[in-house]
């Protein structure tokens, strides 16, 4: 879905979100409360600059609007693959963004992630995956790599991977697989406003994704193994 259409569906025509190149930001009103919106569009690659732009908005919200909820609108192809960004410490900039979002949560801001188009790898770890909870639209795509690329890297036949992915969500892209593994809390299917309303009200503030992954049958071991460590 185009971000403009998404913004209109969620917040009406005068939503208050603007795009500066691939960076989205704004303050919106939702059912009587102000929300900070931070996001990316056009499958933006996340480099040092984009990570810092997002972090700046999080820090401004923390400083100027204590307690205000933050909505992360996610559409990224992953981290920017440039030598200059590596030289300048792209991992440090992304960790900084993650630490800013994490501090917002600790200070009582609700932080909701929404994958409205595409979420990949590094671009996702320091956005939706470090929010209180991450949601997705049904047509969104979430992945580390597609099956053909995974077949090349792992040297396992594409047909075999496709077959295994029918029953094991760790092997293939897809929103439903991420729901099953607990990485995505829920899919917003029809009424987007209802989705956001319930997310702001019900999103867990502690990390319960491994438990969800177990109860939903998508990640059988993550929770159990951590429990074993606690009991060892």
């Amino acid at each position, binding site marked *: 879905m185009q971000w403009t259409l998404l913004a209109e569906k969620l917040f009406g025509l005068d939503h208050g979100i603007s795009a500066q190149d691939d960076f989205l930001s704004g303050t919106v009103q939702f059912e009587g409360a102000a929300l900070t919106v931070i996001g990316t569009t056009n499958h933006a690659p996340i480099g040092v600059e984009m990570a810092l732009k997002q972090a700046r908005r999080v820090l401004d919200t923390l*400083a100027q609007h204590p307690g205000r909820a933050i909505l992360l609108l996610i559409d990224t192809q992953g*981290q920017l*693959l440039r030598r200059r*960004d590596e030289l300048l410490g792209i991992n440090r900039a992304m960790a900084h963004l993650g630490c800013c979002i994490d501090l917002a949560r600790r200070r009582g801001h609700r932080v909701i992630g929404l994958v409205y188009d595409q979420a990949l790898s590094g671009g996702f770890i320091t956005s939706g995956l470090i929010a209180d909870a991450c949601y997705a639209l049904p047509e969104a795509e979430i992945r*580390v790599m597609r099956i053909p690329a995974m077949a090349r890297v792992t040297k396992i036949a594409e047909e075999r991977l496709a077959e295994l992915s029918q029953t094991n969500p760790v*092997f293939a892209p897809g929103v439903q697989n991420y729901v099953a593994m607990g990485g995505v809390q829920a899919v917003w299917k029809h009424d987007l406003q209802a989705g956001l309303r319930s997310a702001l009200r019900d999103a867990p503030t502690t990390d319960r994704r*491994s438990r969800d992954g177990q109860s939903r049958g998508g990640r059988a071991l993550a929770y159990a193994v951590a429990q074993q*460590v*606690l009991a060892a």
Partner: protein
Amino acid sequence: MSTSFAECSARQRVGLMLDAGSFQEWLPPSARVMSPHLAQLGVPSAFDDGVVIGQGLLQGQRVFMAAQEGEFMGGGVGEVHGAKLVGLLQRALRDQPAAVLLLAESGGVRLHEANAGLIAVSEVMRALLDVRHAGIPVIVLIGGANGCFGGMGIVARCADHIVMSDAARLAMSGPEVIEASSGVEEFDARDRALVWRTTGGKHRYLTGDCDVLVDDDVQAFRAAAIDALAQSRAITLDSLEREHRLLARRFHEAPEGADAAALWSQLGVVDALQVPDLDAPAIRGLRGALAASLAN
């Protein structure tokens, strides 16, 4: 006689870093807590899924420790591997050791179980930040041949302290990935000198991306870990504002292009072209003069 950290296995590193005989492993290989996904793919599994976790003494103080085994799937994080790290961090929150030491050696998410690995890395990140916010220092030590990349490169930068050897690398995407995606003129992955100038321990130390630079010697890593004990660094709005200023200034003021020596010169290194030839003590000597430009 020094022992190369890079040449040791993860389990050897743990044994040599801690007070002799003090390490107690949790979920050891005999417990055979293994990846079900690798088995499904017919790929050889490891009895510890490539990570050693447990507790021991560091100069008499109880610490928790994890060590990733780079020889197994490049230290890649899968479901079980990640869950062992998360469990260790959750247990640290409960049991309050003096510190958590993470001997990171990883290519990031294990691609054979990529979706689970990606979520696992983010769970490690959140659990690590819980420990850090509780005032228990998390010390990341990087000295393996595989470096610390991908999601683990982000996790490392969430810790209180990073110790690296000059043989180590810390970054996001590996040079091969960048070359494959953007061409050899963007990043020649076979140019080892270029790779180390861009991601190696000396570079990370001169820019302040790591806190301590040591020789490739297990005892030097141990000494650096002891020094970092009891030095928790709180994450506050102020500390994040300082970090932001530093990173923004670095980004806006960095010389054009992607040349490490130009960046070192700008930081105040007088003879930047000499840096690759200097040993760790000489590099440590340089950083004192750079303190002003690294202050955040």
